[in-house]
């Protein structure tokens, strides 16, 4: 079956603009995760969804970042008033039920560049 998909694959924007990043998880996966990865760095956890609810949004770096998930499927990560330090690869992952030990399946990421 299809894996996790993300769009766009690349996004260049100007400082101060808003951006929306989309994630389509594997069908039937109830858990969805967003991470951020700066160049040459490890993964930084942003937010976790179980169904449409976000029981853990502790990793969102500021109130400019928000995310939602609808229909227990597609998720959108929105960054308002983008800053240059927001430039990074944004990775989405999904897992079947969100149990701690479950394998997470990652998408290819969205590369965001804020000029």
């Amino acid at each position, binding site marked *: 079956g299809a894996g996790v998909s993300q769009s766009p694959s690349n996004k260049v924007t100007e400082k101060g603009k808003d951006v929306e990043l989309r994630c389509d998880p594997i069908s039937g996966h109830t858990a969805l995760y967003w991470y951020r990865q700066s160049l040459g760095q*490890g*993964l930084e*956890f942003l937010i976790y969804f179980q169904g449409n609810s976000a029981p*853990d949004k502790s990793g969102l770096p500021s109130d400019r970042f928000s995310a939602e998930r609808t229909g227990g499927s597609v998720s959108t990560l929105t960054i308002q008033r983008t800053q240059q330090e927001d430039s990074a690869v944004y990775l989405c992952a999904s897992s079947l039920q969100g149990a*701690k*030990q479950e394998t997470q399946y990652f998408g*290819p990421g969205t590369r965001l560049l804020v000029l």
Partner: protein
Amino acid sequence: LAKTTQPISMDSYEGQEVNITCSHNNIATNDYITWYQQFPSQGPRFIIQGYKTKVTNEVASLFIPADRKSSTLSLPRVSLSDTAVYYCLVDASKIIFGSGTRLSIRP
């Protein structure tokens, strides 16, 4: 909060066995140890997971001592295509990947 520590980088040659050790001193009783591999410009992918002793699959082996405060990922007979970043993950209340180990394989 279980935190992992692993070497920043390692180098090896084709055909060698590579062992990457991860320390997780504060691992909780119900935590498993999971390793992911990440190639450039791709998302991480699952390699192996274990709770104690030894686990082996077609890709790697995972050795976990009795105290579970560390684990070692073993890659047999590496090739150039094994050049990647390897993450050790102990899934506690937070999902922490850390910086990983950048493995470089040379001909």
